[in-house]
């Protein structure tokens, strides 16, 4: 695929909904180790509502649609992770402004604003064992690929690889935020639910782009 149009965003949201549903139990278990165990349910609620809205919406601009999906997620999933993911979509969508198609450069802009929004709202940074640790490397990889003039397929592939590596790296990190932070040293070696959600989001984009 050379660029993402609004219809492709709708496809991505359907993909994300399925992916989160398929991983609902895993997310719940990951969260249950150190959080309150409702991450799987929350994310299913979030992406079900977002996919329904994407299907229903007649918004022609991808950025506007993504912003709208953020607002829908905020309402459907009023938890910390729901609010962070919602912020990502809102900020990412806003950064696209009136762009009508997303090539490698625009996708990099989207993910950069997405992860920056999460860092700002969650008052966090890479390295604290959060969703940022998969999204941030993916956004960096997209930027590098776009700057090198790579195709969208190639850029998305690099982002996906970076996010997977990010998940692996984050497993060795010490949790600093939320309930998981109470466990500090005990969190080392455990896979983080938020970082996993970040990977699923990147994966959803990747799968639709290379399909």
């Amino acid at each position, binding site marked *: 695929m050379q660029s993402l149009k609004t219809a492709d965003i709708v496809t991505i949201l359907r993909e994300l909904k399925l992916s989160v549903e398929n991983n609902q139990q895993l997310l719940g278990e990951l969260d249950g180790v150190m959080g309150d165990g409702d991450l799987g349910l929350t994310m299913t609620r979030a992406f079900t509502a977002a996919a329904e809205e994407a299907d229903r919406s007649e918004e022609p601009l991808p950025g506007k649609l993504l*912003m709208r999906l953020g607002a829908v997620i905020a309402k459907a999933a009023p938890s910390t992770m729901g*609010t962070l993911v919602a912020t990502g979509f*809102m900020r990412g969508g806003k950064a696209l402004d009136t762009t009508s198609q997303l090539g490698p450069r625009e996708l990099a802009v989207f993910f950069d604003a997405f992860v920056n929004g999460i860092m700002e709202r969650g*008052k966090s940074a890479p390295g604290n064992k959060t969703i940022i640790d998969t999204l941030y490397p993916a956004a960096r990889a997209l930027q590098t690929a776009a700057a090198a003039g790579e195709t969208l397929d190639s850029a998305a592939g690099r982002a996906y690889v970076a996010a997977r590596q990010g998940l692996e790296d984050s497993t060795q990190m010490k949790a600093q935020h939320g309930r998981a932070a109470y466990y500090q040293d005990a969190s080392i070696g455990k896979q983080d639910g938020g970082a996993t959600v970040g990977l699923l989001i990147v994966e959803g984009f990747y799968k639709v782009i290379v399909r």
Partner: protein
Amino acid sequence: MNDPRLFVDEMLEGIVVAHPGQLISVAGDLRCIVRGGDKTAGKVGIATGGGSGHLPLFLGYIGKGMLDGCAVGGVFQSPSADQMLEVTRAIDSGAGVLYIYGNYGGDIMNFDMAAELADMEGIKVEQVVAGEDVASAPKGEEGKRRGVAGIFFVYKIAGALAGEGASLAAVKKVAEKVSAGVRTMGVALSPCIVPEVGRPSFQLGENEMEIGMGIHGEPGIHRGPLQTADEIVTQITGRLLEDLPFRKGDEVAILLNGLGATPKEELYILGRKLHRILKEKQITVFHTYVGEFATSMEMAGASISLLRLDDELRRLLAQPADTPFFTQFQL
């Protein structure tokens, strides 16, 4: 109580039926409470929000001369951004909305989010985060301080100015001024219980007290044997005065706040000593508020807040207010 899981919603149902006309819930959600009656066109709306378990905070100050709406969370939990957005929509009259809330991570994240969502809908929102608990962070790190009872003064004064039809920028400015001029410190004598948890969140011995404990049981600065009322007031007042600092010739308003299980008699005993100290320091007292303003469930203890006044703040503080939990005639 009945079922701990229904603690907040049954409490809210009771409050709304007790104050018909004054309070209504919006968006089909009991946790979104706004002022009854018609909106005044051109008046800046003031919204707050925060966890339950602190009555009269936060919704208790919705009414004439103070707040317009409140998003209510579970006990000691932030309400959601969406609930804040519903309140924002309901109270905006076109002049914009000011959020005034305490400095807690969950509340900040959700109010920030609500402000961003409101902005997407064309509602102008500004925010003032109140934090004045001297015990919660040292001088120089005021931005890290927790918001406690002193937020009452921010509500009262910002609400009075908004009632006069002032602009969003002007109401925000006065709220910031109050927030910067108020200092609070408390003492806890017994812990509190979150209903759904069912046991005290910390232990405090029979003859122990903790100076500076937060209203959710956050650690204070000193735990030790129970002292007399005069000793406690001397210690707390010393810290408050040197922190701002309050100086000879200043005029202040006092808030003597019970944390939930402290009789008013005890608060007046604290107030007696406080007045003596202030008189000695040649600090004038404009008004003394005594009662429960920001509680922590059934925690025993009290907090003292001092607000430095100038002509503008004195005039606005003196104006009448009428809310379910606080009524004042012109001072």
